[in-house]
């Protein structure tokens, strides 16, 4: 049995502790904001936070989060108004939108750790998240904007 606090709610999971957090939150909890993109921690679409740090949910077993605090895109801000989310809208970042939950969670994790990242630090962090619509230029600008607000 695994005990996790997800978006402020205590959960107990009795299933396979090797199940990745991605599938646990999507299939068991119905938190579908976290997306499946590759299953190999290569694209970042499934990025969520465990104790404030970014993890790729597709390769992180539920057991890893036992006793820890997990935040998904749905729990980043109760109103959807985290500075990163506001910056995303101000820059009209999304095209299809599919990768954006993961992009936002990566950016929020970066700014948690480093509120004043250099351009190179932004690129290094965000290079783990793929966007096939090609919104990188706006993501880069939005992270810079959000950094001024956190």
């Amino acid at each position: 049995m695994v005990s996790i606090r997800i978006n402020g709610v205590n959960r107990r999971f009795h299933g396979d502790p090797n199940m990745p957090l991605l599938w646990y939150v999507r299939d068991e909890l119905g938190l579908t904001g976290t997306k499946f993109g590759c299953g190999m921690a290569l694209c970042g679409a499934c990025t969520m936070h465990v104790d404030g740090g970014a993890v790729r949910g597709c390769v992180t077993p539920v057991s890893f989060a036992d006793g820890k605090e997990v935040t998904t895109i749905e729990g980043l801000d109760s109103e959807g108004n985290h500075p990163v989310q506001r910056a995303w809208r101000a820059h009209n970042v999304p095209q299809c939108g599919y990768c954006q939950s993961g992009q936002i969670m990566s950016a929020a994790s970066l700014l948690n750790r480093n509120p004043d990242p250099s351009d190179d630090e932004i690129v290094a962090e965000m290079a783990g998240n793929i966007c096939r619509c090609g919104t990188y230029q706006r993501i880069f600008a939005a992270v810079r904007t959000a950094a001024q607000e956190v």
Partner: protein
Amino acid sequence: MSGIQNLSRRDFLKNTGITGAMVLGAQVVPSPLLAGARAQSTGASIQPNLFVSIAGDGMVTITCSRSEMGQGVRTGIPMILADELEADWQRVKIWQAPGDAEKYDPAGKDGQNTDGSRSTRHHLDVMRELGAAGRYVLEQAAARKWGVDPGEVYAKDHRLYHTGSGRSFDFGDVVDAAAGIEVPAGADAPKLKDPSRWKYIGRDMPVVDNYDMSTGGADFGADVTIPGMKIAVVARAPVYRGKVKSFDAAEALKVQGVEQVVEIPPLPDDKPAEFRALGGIAVIGTNTWSVLEGRRKLAIEWDDGPNTAHDSSTYDDQLRAAARDGGHVIRDRGNVDEAFAAADQVLEAEYFVPYFIHTPMEPPAAIVDANARPVKIVAATQSPNETRQYVAEALGVDKSEVECQVTLLGGGFGRKSKPDFACEAAILSQMTGSPVRVQWTREDEIRNGYYHAASAHRMKAGLDTSGKVTAWHHSGAWPSLIGLWAPAARTGHPIEYGLGLIDTPYDAVPNLRIENGEADVMIRVGWYRSVNNIQHAFAMNCFANELAAAAGRDPVEFLLELIGEAEVMDLAKDGVEDPWNYGDSVEEWPIMPKRLSNVLRVAAAKSGYGKPMPAGHGLGLACHRSFHSYVATAVHVVVRDDGSLHIPQVDMVVDCGRYVNPEGVKKQIEGAAIYGNTVARHGLISTTRGAVDQSNFHDYPVTRMNDAPLDVRVHIVEDFVHLRPCGVGEPGVPPYTPALVNAIHDATGKRIRRLPIGDQLKSA
């Protein structure tokens, strides 16, 4: 054209969830049938659709009949209607239409398939008419309530005003009086706004889904759940048209959460692939992780079938030989042979572009309940109407018994026009008796996709003593996407010729021949963002750059000279009758060399072309017409000593005629640079004994932020003469690769003739 009806308070609205008291629909009828259909339209046989409804509280609901995959269509198309209606955008909601081309293809042109960069150009007129009709009905209703002449009433910003008294109503105040007001047609049809009075068309608008997309609230294909639904993944043959010889599911069935393992029958030998299910072994269970684990534990013996000779180590050279051999002349001007004999210099070069795969961030996913009537499909599909058709065939039911709801698409790029994944869900739902969601993984998407055709190009040109091109001969070979329907096809289809080859824009060249060689289709070849334009633009722009160097001339001046300044290029003069022109007539959307020259000139100016650059820096330009739009791209590249690239700036100039949402245009063109950057530098699908070698983003890399240009400047040419709207989603991609490759030559003197660039610069 369509007939517009006021459908307020009609019985059929009861089950639609539309609560509006005023509803307008458009009868979707191809124009030749319109006269006959009008006569029937009072009968019950034609089911009206819904395009705009206005509720008593004034909320306007506009139908979006196109699939949203990041191109902004759920914003752009409704903007048109809202503008003509004089609605306030803050009080507009969007309703996503289900798949039903009889009802929701108001332009009657494309069967509701969101593809070919055509939504805006096919919907601008009809959405304006619907908006104007709505405004007309509201004005009439207000006049009725006030008891005044309708000519004294006008709509503005969601209100209706009476000129004489200054009285006004909110839109919602008059919907109760709207029933029964007929929308006149023909010469009396409601007048469209003069473009000078447009308040949304032509202005930047954020996408309607911005909030949901930034909070995880947007629903994509795999985000929908229906009661009793099972989840399935499928193991498919590694080689196209391979089959299951035998399988053992014992270990898979031991996985907690796995409930069943069943075989989806293979494609029958006599049926072309089209969009049908490929067949394979499906693992079905209660959650995605369980079925993925179960699939890993399957033991399957495959019969690899007839395509094991499809091996890149030999197939690529077969394409090169086929390009050299040519054989099918598709456009011929003057006499290239005589011109080559008389030329001062004759140059030849071969270009090669490999297979690509789409990799939308959302792998395909669809839910089908085959046991309900009507059959229910929920899918991330570009083409919901064809999804119904293929699912109906898979289930052996009539298409009228199948419904398809469309979710948001996590990228499409052409992959999601092909509903094989929905067919799989349908077959599994029928076999198991439960609703089933089929989830494709990234490996499935890369190994069992519909591939952008690999292609080889033999380019040959003659120059006279002054360095002018006297003859141009382009011969290309590729496996045709028409093989999906005609597996024995060995030559290209007119559609592929029309994708930037037969319409080669070098109109000023006196002798010109375009030729097509033969190739076997040994994999599912399908369309990909920009389709064959990618390789055609690459080969012709880069070869032109080579010729300029051989002639000792400026490459941009040289390219401008090839294109010329003609108003219209008439392919009929070169023996081409009725060329495929993106499904539209050449009268309405002609090929216009001077617009191509214009964007190239603007790109040179915007990029600072001609100024000296530091060592290791290069600036390359290229231009291409596709989907009726004209795009020129200038790439500034820095090639470092170790062969790695940095791209500090890209300028992209687009002439797309009339546009609706300039912010949307900019985003599509910015994204095209990134998509093009993957094509140029990374994209490579290869095969060994028929099986695709790549499987995920580690061996099929795509552009990430650390190799992306982050300063892409989009310049929209304001074309007030050619106001017909043109495509935007795809035309930005083709010129990117040749611009980058030409920039690399400018920086290093090295020619790249084979994609991807990969590490070709590192080995130098």
